[in-house]
């Protein structure tokens, strides 16, 4: 998080790529910045919110954020939006027309690709959008370059009157390095010029603009040939020369300090002539890019022989230890790798839900029910797909749980006739893309029970605000959407909308059983905030009375990380059946006293750490 006052010009700061981009956006005199949070891009807007003189917002989705930025650009203001790779797919509808209208004030789109897939549902190369939309793509290689290129991007955008894509990857966004920053320039919006033939994209107006788009692309290609963004680093060993973009450039320099490298900072459109001249000087040309062979294919199409994905991996991150052996194979040898002990096999440690997370109650309850098909969505609650709940059957993209649930209901055959279709979605995801799906469910009379998990945060990305939290990006009060009323407006019958406390398992269970029985759309809204935010108030912790614990393991099924199995035993029942027992302990220091695990414990072995208390009991179905 940034300081209250931006650091003075010429300071050398230790910034992540995201922080560096934010600094540059502010310095460039940008007036409007918008985003929907998404790893690894989230911190850009978070950081921008700390700067004065920039309007910053969390938009409900990426398409809206891009539209907000375009609106500002039309006023002649400098505008910016940020998103993760899958977000650009959402925004692409607006993007593909924006490239035809062009822009007025400089508009920069930072798109962060999750190369290596740390927290995304796919790995995709957003540079394709540059080719698809005929827009320039800038690819910084570290935080300092992310800073510098962001400033350049605004100028390039204004020179060519089109959006510029700043393509980042996880290794830019989340890598910290030293960044020397500069001065803020004041840019006064030039004002709106009425020009319907430019801004109103009906066919008659759009057609004459298409040739202009290709003229612009040719001008950009010419600029790329001589641009300082595409520098040549000479090397003494001409046996292999590299063309590299983004952080791959740093890995190349690290692994092959003596090789010449043509670095592509402006990688779309390509400086084909410059690359051809470079190729002629080296014995082998190797293109190093993350992730798709984009540059490679374009070079081959231009008749320039090169290596790329024939020797390098097609997916995942590149790194010096990936490059060295790949290039060594080109010369028929094996690269000496540093000596090290073999990697050890240690249990996997997948991410898990937090201690006392309100979603625990939801997934525990779902896991106790039979005959459900559960359509899941993107957010913390996707972790319900993991152990011990195994309570999600699908997860595709933001908001998709709604439409998919309707499709499951309508598409089911006799085999699934008895199954109940449940869709699970978070508050922010629902507002992002879920609302339309729910409307489709009500309109088409889908038999779907929607669990709307309102934890008042975009939990997965660190608890950002949205229209359901009652706060704006700077923490200022904002109108708060009423989900019950919203769902009613979308066509759900009032009596089919329930608000329940996810810490009260019997209530939740009853609500789910009743609503899944009724053959019409229903919504169960849970109302407990994320434990990481919102002044979460922990209650008194619990502990386990060893003498009472029967080892049934019911509390373990709740999935709270504060519950630990201390001893396992096998019991042989009179019937001869073997039953595994797990005796537990509650880590009192971590327990927040939410009371979830207390409810399924039949022998009432879980008691307040201070004084024994009566507990409720939830019967299994």
């Amino acid at each position, binding site marked *: 998080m940034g300081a209250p006052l931006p650091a003075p010009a010429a300071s050398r700061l230790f910034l992540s790529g995201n922080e560096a981009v934010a600094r540059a956006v502010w310095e460039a005199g940008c007036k409007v910045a918008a985003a929907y949070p998404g790893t690894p891009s989230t911190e850009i807007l978070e950081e921008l919110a700390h700067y004065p003189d920039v309007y910053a917002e969390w938009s409900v989705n990426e398409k809206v954020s891009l539209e907000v930025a375009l609106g500002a650009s039309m006023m002649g203001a400098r505008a910016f939006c940020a998103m993760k790779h899958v977000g650009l797919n959402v925004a692409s509808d607006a993007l593909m027309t924006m490239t035809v209208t062009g822009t007025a004030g400089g508009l920069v789109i930072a798109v962060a690709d999750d190369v290596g897939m740390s*927290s995304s549902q796919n790995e995709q190369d957003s540079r394709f959008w540059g080719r698809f939309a005929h827009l320039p793509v800038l690819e910084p290689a570290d935080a300092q370059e992310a800073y510098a290129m962001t400033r350049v991007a605004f100028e390039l955008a204004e020179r060519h009157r089109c959006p510029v894509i700043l393509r980042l990857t996880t290794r830019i966004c989340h890598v910290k390095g030293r960044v020397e920053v500069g001065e803020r320039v004041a840019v006064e919006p030039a004002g709106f010029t009425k020009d319907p033939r430019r801004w109103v994209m009906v066919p008659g107006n759009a057609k004459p603009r298409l040739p202009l788009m290709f003229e612009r692309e040719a001008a950009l290609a010419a600029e790329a040939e001589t641009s300082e963004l595409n520098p040549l680093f000479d090397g003494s060993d001409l046996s292999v020369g590299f063309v590299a973009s983004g952080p791959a450039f740093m890995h190349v320099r690290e692994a092959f300090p003596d090789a010449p490298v043509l670095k592509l900072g402006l990688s779309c459109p390509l400086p084909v002539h410059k690359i051809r001249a470079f190729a002629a000087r080296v014995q082998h040309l190797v293109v190093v890019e993350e992730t798709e062979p984009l540059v490679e294919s374009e070079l081959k199409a231009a008749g320039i022989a090169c290596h790329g994905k024939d020797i390098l991996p097609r997916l995942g991150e590149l790194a010096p230890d990936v490059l060295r052996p790949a290039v060594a194979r080109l010369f028929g040898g094996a690269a000496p790798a540093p000596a*090290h002990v073999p990697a050890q096999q*240690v*249990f996997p*440690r997948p*991410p*898990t839900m937090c201690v006392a997370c309100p979603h625990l109650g939801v997934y525990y309850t779902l896991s106790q029910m039979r005959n459900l098909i559960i359509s899941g969505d993107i957010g913390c609650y996707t972790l319900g797909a993991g*152990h011990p709940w195994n309570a999600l059957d699908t997860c595709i993209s933001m908001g998709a749980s709604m439409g998919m649930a309707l499709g499951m209901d309508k598409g089911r055959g006799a085999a699934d006739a008895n199954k109940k279709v449940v869709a699970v979605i978070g508050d922010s995801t629902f507002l992002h893309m879920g609302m339309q799906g729910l409307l489709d469910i009500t309109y088409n009379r889908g038999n779907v029970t929607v669990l709307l998990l309102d934890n008042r945060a975009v939990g997965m990305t660190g608890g950002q605000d949205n229209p359901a939290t009652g706060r704006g990006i700077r923490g200022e009060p904002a109108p708060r959407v009423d989900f019950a009323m919203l769902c009613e407006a979308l066509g759900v019958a009032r009596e089919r909308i329930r608000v329940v406390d996810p810490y009260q398992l019997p209530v939740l269970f009853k609500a789910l059983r009743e609503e899944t029985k009724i053959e019409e759309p229903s919504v169960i809204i849970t109302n407990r905030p994320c434990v990481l935010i919102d002044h979460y108030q922990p209650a008194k912790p619990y502990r386990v009375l060893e003498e009472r614990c029967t080892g049934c393991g019911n509390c373990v099924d709740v999935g709270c990380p504060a519950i*630990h199995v201390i001893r396992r035993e096998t019991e042989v029942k009179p019937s001869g059946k073997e039953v595994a027992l797990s005796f537990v302990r509650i880590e009192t220091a971590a327990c927040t006293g939410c009371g979830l695990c207390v409810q399924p414990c039949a022998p009432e072995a879980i008691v307040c750490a201070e004084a024994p208390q009566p507990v409720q009991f939830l019967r299994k179905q």
Partner: protein
Amino acid sequence: MARHKTTNILVCGIGGQGVMTATEILAEAALSLGFDVKKTEVAGMSQRGGVVTSHLRFGERVLSPQIVPGEADLLVGFEAAETLRWAHMLRPGAVALMNVGRLVPPVVNIGLFDYPDDPVAEMRALGLTVHAFDASALALKLGDIRLGNTVMLGAMADRLPFPAEVLRQAVLARFASRKPQWVAVNREAFELGRRAVAEAALAGSTASW
């Protein structure tokens, strides 16, 4: 370690333990000496109890932010099994500083996987030099598990290519500006870590005779 050489430090643990904060402070110390510094976290949904590693590289000029397996000069493990997980990152002859405190994940709890019986012994069996001590217990003794972070920083202090005092200052400066009431206890945590690792080193050397 000479200045022209890049120093590679790998800090590992699980989300929520303060791995990133500790590495950040270490980075600040290196920056204050004028080194070029790069720091990166290796992915994982780190806030949710998953695996976290933080790579810190500093020297005259740092290019790639990632440490290659077999090139870490120091491995600092905030959790026992996690230290074992990253053992292969160490270069031959380098040292691992290891908290023997265990954090058992749900997949082990529900019986799907086993937690290693003795991660320290397994590390040593690989021929690695391990200075193991219970940083979690030391932190709890001082009243807060979160102090484990500073204990681990203290443990690193005498194994860096710059004076321990520089790191100590970076730790204390951070608290002085954010939580002044925490300065004294963190100073103590730092010294406890320093001493604990020195004792562990002594014990380790006798054991290997």
